[in-house]
């Protein structure tokens, strides 16, 4: 059987080499196509490698002796790595293909080569992260990922907001890396080795373990955008080129999840409160994310906030699993982890799909404002269909994949509700309705996006003469939509994969004989989904048959008696969300400018409503500003007066002498 690592490394090399053609090629268009081809080849190699790794029993690892003083590096593809390799390779290949249509090299001769290069580097580093088993290799790959992503998102646009978003992303990202320094140093202290230990190698009872957990939470939490560490995420996703946003939201922030899963998998007998922390963080991130999303009218910012929401859902799954394993309920551990991991895959697919769709729409309308789109379904039917698929999937609605993963997490929660001594830990019981609320809000939000952007009549001239995206942009969307539908209709197909991964993470699980099939009848879900499709088909046939036999007229939309409705009379995204935004205004702090209409012939006035980055603009920036002002007192010490500088020397001297004097005394 061919070695998974060999395939994966081949994938890395192919992906990394994808940056070169465009730099050297005389014909940019061809160079870009070659790059895309390389990415696709890398994906084929990598995905087959991942599947091979999932298929085989024992984990293969390579040891590389390199010339740095931290011992030989080690790479390996265990089931967890393999599971994350799937989205990394798939999404990056899709991005590369999408870029051909979205960021054509011949139209962007200056930026396209850099963008392609950094995407290639980004892909390679992402893959390296999940197969790295050595602290230094991991950190190196991690930093390369952060930095190359920074360049990928900034080389495209030179506008100020792009640069600011990039700076914010970079600074916050670097803080995350520093937290990881602490994480790995502490881990070294615990294992006295720079290699990542196997699953369940460390007892989680020591204070050191707690420190490691906190460091991991900070470092990986920043990357995955847990509230309140998410401040970098919305602007970064919104201002990056759409395919970069896709890979960021689909894969990059998942590295935080990967790290989290990897980190907790190292421990045995995990304290209950770890799970509670993750669950709470999940609920908060989910709610805050979706609530902020509803307030947005920039389509990409909105999608970015939904990434925060979905990260929250994933964390809820992890929390359930930790709580389960610490309470000795293997079923919860299984369902929680499986749900979280599956949701990671699912979110990778449908969120990238949505960002691609948003990209095509922006490409067509030249704006990110939903309120300036409208009526696109007529002009870009395929994009609309794919976007609709993504929207239904991200709302967690059957029969698509989003439902399956959320369903698993729900099962975990409910299992906890009826099994656990619930009054002492009522967290499950509170989490289930919270997840339901998140789902409901997400639904409201995506009906808004799809309805306002694609339905109704065009709200601006640009959207009126918008055009369908090219094949290079449609193909990736088609693939991803197919994946969404596939996982949604036949979830039992992915169950074995998940089970392998979960077992590899929790060796104790196999002993208890808990199986996914035993606790989640995914088969029935797929039956119901198929029945649903059947019913839709049947009703449609019936309806078509009926329409064919009765007169069909076309008229204007019923305007309640008003005969000349215009596009500007349609309901806007802001008005659609108004009630909900009002409900949560305590959190959102929306800036609304309501004009005062007076007189019998009021002048033309305009109404404005905008939801700011409340946490960033309302909390962090003021706080730092305050600190900075306090610090300016210290800055006075460097006043430029020489004789006082000399005084510093004297004081230091005398202070040291006195100190040493007393040290010797005592």
């Amino acid at each position, binding site marked *: 059987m061919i070695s998974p690592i060999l395939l994966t490394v081949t994938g890395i090399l192919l992906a990394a080499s994808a940056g070169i053609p465009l730099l050297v090629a005389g014909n940019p268009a061809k160079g870009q196509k070659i790059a895309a081809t390389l990415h696709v080849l890398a994906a084929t190699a990598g995905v087959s490698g991942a599947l091979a790794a999932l298929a085989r029993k024992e984990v293969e690892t390579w040891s590389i002796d390199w010339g740095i003083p931290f011992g030989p590096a080690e790479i390996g593809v265990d089931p967890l790595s393999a599971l994350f390799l799937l989205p990394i390779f798939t999404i990056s290949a899709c991005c590369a293909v999408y870029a051909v249509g979205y960021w054509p090299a011949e139209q962007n001769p200056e930026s396209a080569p850099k963008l392609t290069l950094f995407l290639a580097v980004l892909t390679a580093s992402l893959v390296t992260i999940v197969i790295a088993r050595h602290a230094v290799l991991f950190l*190196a790959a991690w930093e*390369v990922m952060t930095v190359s992503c920074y360049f990928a998102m900034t080389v495209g646009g030179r506008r100020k907001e792009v640069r600011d978003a990039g700076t914010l992303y970079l600074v916050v990202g670097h803080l995350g890396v520093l937290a990881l320094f602490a994480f790995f140093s502490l881990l070294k202290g615990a294992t006295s080795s720079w290699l990542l230990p196997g699953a369940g190698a460390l007892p989680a009872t020591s204070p050191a373990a707690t420190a490691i957990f906190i460091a991991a939470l900070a470092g990986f939490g920043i990357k995955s955008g847990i509230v309140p560490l998410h401040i970098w995420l919305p602007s970064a996703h919104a201002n990056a080129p759409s395919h970069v946003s896709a890979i960021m939201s689909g894969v990059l922030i998942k590295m935080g999840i990967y790290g989290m899963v990897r980190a907790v998998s190292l421990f045995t007998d995990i304290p209950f409160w770890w799970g509670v922390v993750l669950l709470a963080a999940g609920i908060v991130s989910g709610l805050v994310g979706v609530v902020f999303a509803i307030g947005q009218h920039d389509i990409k910012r909105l999608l970015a906030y939904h990434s925060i929401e979905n990260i929250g859902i994933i964390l809820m799954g992890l929390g359930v699993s930790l709580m389960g394993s610490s309470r000795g309920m293997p079923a919860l551990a299984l369902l929680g982890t499986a749900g979280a991991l599956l949701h990671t895959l699912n979110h990778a697919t449908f969120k990238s799909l949505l960002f691609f769709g948003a990209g095509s729409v922006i490409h067509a309308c030249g704006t990110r404002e939903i309120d300036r789109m409208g009526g696109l379904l007529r002009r870009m039917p395929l994009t609309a269909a794919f976007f609709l698929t993504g929207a239904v999937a991200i709302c967690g609605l059957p029969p698509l994949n989003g439902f399956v993963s959320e369903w698993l997490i729900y099962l975990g929660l409910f299992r906890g509700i009826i099994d656990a001594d619930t009054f002492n830990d009522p967290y499950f019981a509170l989490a289930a309705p919270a997840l339901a609320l998140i789902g409901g809000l997400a639904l409201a939000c995506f009906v808004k996006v799809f309805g306002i952007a694609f339905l109704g009549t065009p709200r601006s001239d640009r959207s009126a003469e918008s055009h369908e995206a090219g094949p290079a942009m449609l193909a990736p969307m088609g693939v991803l939509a197919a994946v969404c539908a596939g996982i949604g209709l036949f979830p039992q197909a992915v169950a074995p994969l998940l089970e392998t991964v979960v077992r590899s993470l929790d060796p104790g699980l196999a002993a208890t004989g808990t199986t996914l099939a035993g606790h989640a009848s995914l088969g029935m879900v797929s039956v119901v989904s198929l029945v649903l499709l059947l019913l839709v088909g049947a009703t449609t046939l019936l309806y078509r048959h009926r329409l064919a036999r009765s007169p069909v007229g076309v008229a204007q939309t019923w305007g309640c008696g008003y005969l000349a409705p215009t596009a500007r009379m349609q309901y806007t995204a802001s008005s659609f969300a108004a009630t909900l935004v009002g409900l949560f205004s305590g959190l959102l702090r929306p800036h609304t400018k309501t004009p005062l209409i007076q007189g019998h012939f009021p002048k033309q006035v305009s109404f404005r409503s905008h939801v700011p980055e409340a946490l960033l603009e309302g909390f962090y920036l003021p706080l730092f500003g305050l600190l900075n002002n306090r610090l300016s007192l*210290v800055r006075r010490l460097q006043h430029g007066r020489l004789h006082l500088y000399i005084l510093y*020397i004297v004081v230091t001297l005398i202070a040291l002498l006195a100190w040493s004097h007393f*040290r010797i005394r005592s």
Partner: protein
Amino acid sequence: MIALLIALPLLGALAAWLTPDNRRRPLVLPVVGGVHLLLTLALLAETPPPALGGWIILDPLGKLVLLEVSILFFCCAIYSVGYLAYRRERSNRVLCMGLPLCLGAMSLACVSQHLGLLWVAIESTTLAMAPLIYFNRNARSIEATWKYMLICSIGIAMALLGLYFLAYATVVARQEPTLLLAPLLAQARGLSPAWLNGAFIFLLVGFGTKIGLAPLHTWKPDAYGEAPGLVGALLAGGLVNCGFLGICRIYQICLAAGTTTFFRDALTLLGFLSMGFAAVFVLRQADFKRLLAYSSVEHVGFMAIGFGLGRGAIPGTVFHLLTNGLTKGVLFLTAANIHRSYNSKRAERVRGVMDRLPWSGWLFMLALFAVTGSPPFATFLSEFMILSGLFADGREIAGVTVILLFAVIFTGMALTILPILTGRGGSDLDDSGYRDRLLTVAPPLALLLVTLLLGIWIPAPLREILDATAAMLGVGS
């Protein structure tokens, strides 16, 4: 051969002095630098025996610093040719003399085993640098030079007094009075503790002024800010390391005398002070050369902490001496390019470097990542070694504090530098017509590549040197 190592630069200085032609004179520097580098490599290849009755020995620590200094100087020398080609209007005789003199003094410092000789060498570097800081000959540079001169001279004096105390400690202990390292180490335990302690303190303050530990760093931003870029590079990458050489020698004696605790604590204290100061002043720092100065203060403090907390942190600290010096070279040289092109080093007058000077821009960007300890640069390895060493020794609080300070400093540097690099250039900005040229871009590029290389592969000989140095400084003790 070692004699040649020191004589060569002096000859170079002489040659520079004799060369009448302002245009051809700078060519002396690369020659000196190149030969010096070759000599250094030869010396590293096979170590020469002690000379001058043990006054001159090339021990691992000396090798390390010598290598760093030599590489840095070679790059700066090549750079200077390209740089001075832009400064034709100004006589470069002093510069072309001062640089080799400084190199000679630094080489001497690396090989001298006699503390007195070491002191002489280090202080000659101070003197040799003074006129170079004054290269620009304007009010600001004279002010900077004056402050540098007076404060460092007081540092010199303090160090001298410290040496006297050390010598007197031998006298009081009725031992053969000497300042040779070997005998001192041998008889350290017998020395009078009071005088020894005084010696440590005065030497620490003296050399601390030299390397710019807060609050003795006050001259640093001024000097680094006003000196030409390559002088700044040598100050931050060369002289600082010579100062640390002095600190390490005292450290050795402490270890031998078995009275390390106070010295270590003092180092740690000053180290944290320095990092704290740097963190405060890096935020909202509009002058990017002063920014680099504070970054240097930060790293000096970081290394002081490394030495001070000792044990597990020592190997990383030793390695950081090397990596930090090289990175500083990249930063100052590229910063000089930017300064030259925009005729300003204020953030508000400099934007869009990536467009105007793509090479310098990218180098500066990468150097920013390197100096803040981002993988895969060697600085990451050294910083991570120190940090993990701290954690391994159970100094979690120190480690976390350092990490927080790093965070603040990166934020400050990024907030000042990224707009400079990626911002949009405008017609309101001054343009001296300077553009990237091979001679002004290749040296920093080379330095960056070395840093990168060391980040992913450390040659076996170098590792031996590092380990030996760490052993000298009592790793694990």
